[in-house]
């Protein structure tokens, strides 16, 4: 089932959690709402679920207006960050809850409920915990039960609020790929909230990057990572280096290096910032032509397949360190150590004119 939100706005006192947000979630996709805390992503999820009410705007399920529908009627499965399992019930009863509270005429018979619950517990691979209580389970187990409980009512959409946020790194990774596989099997339209960019990029079909109550960019993980639409997305998704630049009639000067910038043909003497990913910087021992910056190696981290270098520009005012990532092979070729002089050149970059304040 597809979800559409139109022009949602929501204020908490003087804090604007959502500012005119519109978004479409395609049927069967796994969508990530990614953003720092306070960006409005959880509020958006809760408004979609019906747990919060927006001040303005609409929520549509499968093209039908659900704005005034109660949570109860929206048939959404909601998974909370802190699981919210019913502490006074066994795991079995937790999962059975959604079926047991149904009105008598649509409630399945006991035997059917039992069968369905055990099916779900098997799906999350925790059938053997049916008679335990939530407090006897580990965090990862609880979150899987929370998911089974949400699935029990056969929801049309699955909404997950920072589902792995409270778990340790290892369990988080396991559950992440498990959720991906589960989604591939079930194809239920799912939206999950996260502040972890790695999680969003790894699991989701599409990523929605949010900031200060607005959507900054929507795209596949590749799109948002490779072609960030704004400085914010650049900085939020992975490491990035900033270079002071100048734009003038389709030419740009990145820290003094002249390059082509055809998309800024109209620019007249414009100050700008160039965003360059650490792996998009070329490093050489000798200057290849004049278009290179002199820098000195201040730090080398050579653990793993990627070698991270920290450089300081030599003849620039800007003394912020530059992060560079090169392959191990390239590192062996260059044989760099701390204190060496190198010449660097951005291979790929994006220019954003300074915002006029």
């Amino acid at each position, binding site marked *: 089932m597809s979800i559409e939100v139109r022009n949602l706005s929501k204020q908490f006192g003087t804090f604007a959690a959502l500012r005119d947000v519109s978004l479409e979630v395609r049927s069967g996709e796994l969508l990530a709402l990614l953003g720092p805390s306070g960006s409005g992503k959880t509020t958006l999820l809760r408004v979609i679920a019906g747990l919060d009410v927006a001040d303005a705007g609409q929520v549509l399920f499968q093209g039908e207006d659900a704005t005034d529908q109660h949570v109860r009627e929206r048939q959404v499965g909601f998974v909370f960050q802190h699981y919210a399992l019913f*502490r006074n019930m066994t795991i079995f009863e937790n999962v059975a809850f959604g079926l047991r509270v149904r009105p008598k005429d649509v409630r399945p018979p006991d035997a059917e409920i039992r069968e369905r619950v055990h099916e779900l517990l098997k799906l999350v691979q925790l059938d053997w915990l049916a008679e335990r209580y939530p407090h006897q389970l580990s965090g990862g187990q609880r979150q899987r039960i929370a998911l089974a409980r949400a699935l029990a009512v056969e929801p049309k959409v699955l909404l997950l609020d920072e589902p792995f946020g409270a778990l340790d790194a290892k369990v988080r990774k396991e559950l992440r790929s498990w959720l991906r596989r589960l989604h591939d099997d079930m194809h239920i339209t799912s939206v999950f909230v996260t502040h972890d960019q790695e999680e969003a990029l790894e699991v989701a079909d599409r990523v929605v990057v949010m900031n200060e109550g607005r959507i900054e960019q929507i795209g596949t993980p590749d799109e948002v990572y490779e072609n960030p639409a704004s400085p914010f997305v650049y900085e939020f998704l992975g490491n990035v280096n900033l270079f002071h630049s100048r734009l003038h009639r389709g030419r740009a000067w990145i820290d003094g290096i002249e390059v082509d910038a055809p998309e800024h043909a109209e620019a007249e003497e414009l100050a700008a910032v160039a965003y360059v990913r650490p792996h998009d910087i070329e490093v050489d021992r000798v200057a290849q032509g004049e278009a290179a910056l002199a820098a000195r190696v201040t730090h080398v981290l050579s653990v793993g397949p990627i070698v991270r270098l920290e450089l300081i520009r030599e003849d620039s005012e800007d003394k912020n360190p530059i992060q560079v990532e090169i392959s191990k092979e390239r590192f062996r070729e260059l044989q760099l150590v701390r204190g060496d002089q190198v010449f660097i050149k951005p291979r790929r970059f994006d220019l954003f004119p300074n915002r006029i304040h």
Partner: protein
Amino acid sequence: MNATTLPTTARVRRTRATQEPAWVRWSLIGLTLAFLTLFLFVPLILVFYEALKKGTDVYFAAIIEPDALSAIRLTLTVAAIAVPLNLVFGVAAAWAIAKFEFRGKNLLITLIDLPFSVSPVVSGLIYVLIFGLQGWLGPWLAEHDIKVIFAVTGIVLATVFVTVPFIARELIPLMQAQGTEEEEAAVALGANGWQTFSRVTLPNIKWGLLYGTILCNARAMGEFGAVSVVSGHIRGSTNTLPLHVEILYNEYNFAAAFAVASLLALLALVTLALKTMVESRITQPKENANEHRSA
């Protein structure tokens, strides 16, 4: 052998290092025991001793005497009205405070605490000032032939007022700690309001609720000050147990006074026993709740 004994000695040493010297420990324990003996155990034993001094016949005669029976009946009636009222109010107030955000919330919490900070005699007087013959509503009530002061109604009102905080105060921190997520989960799963309350909220607060109710009941039956002001001490009609004890004592009828007092003392003991039982149940779910949140 060494490997197994070593950690034990190490542990013993560590605990000793962090403990006060023996004489400090023993004098603190001794002081506490002496204080308790002097101010609690001795009076309690004395109540039963005085009550039974003239034999069980006198004791039971004092209890089944019509005025005493009437006092017992009245006390039970008042508690039977006041406790359920406060049960409903306490749950509602705690629910509102713990699960919703609204203006004036702090004021409401302060108001709930008011009966704790106001002297019971003053709260009784407030009712006399409102409902008494010379009070604000006095003439109107007299016109309609409704009697509040010097009647059972007034006693109930005063008791309700004095016992308001017990249940609400017990539930508010408990419900605040539990948050609203479980209720939200229940509603999202399709539960209606009553199902959410009866299957999720109520089971989570049941021990706290019972604990508050026990304390509330004890206070409702034992309240003296507020009730004394509004009751008018009419024998066989508006006398509760504590008031009856006072009257008997003032009439130098010590054996009977102590006999009736022993009933209240028994109530206290039963309350304590129940309270201890509930407390041991309450701490377990609380621990679980903490674990549940921190994990």
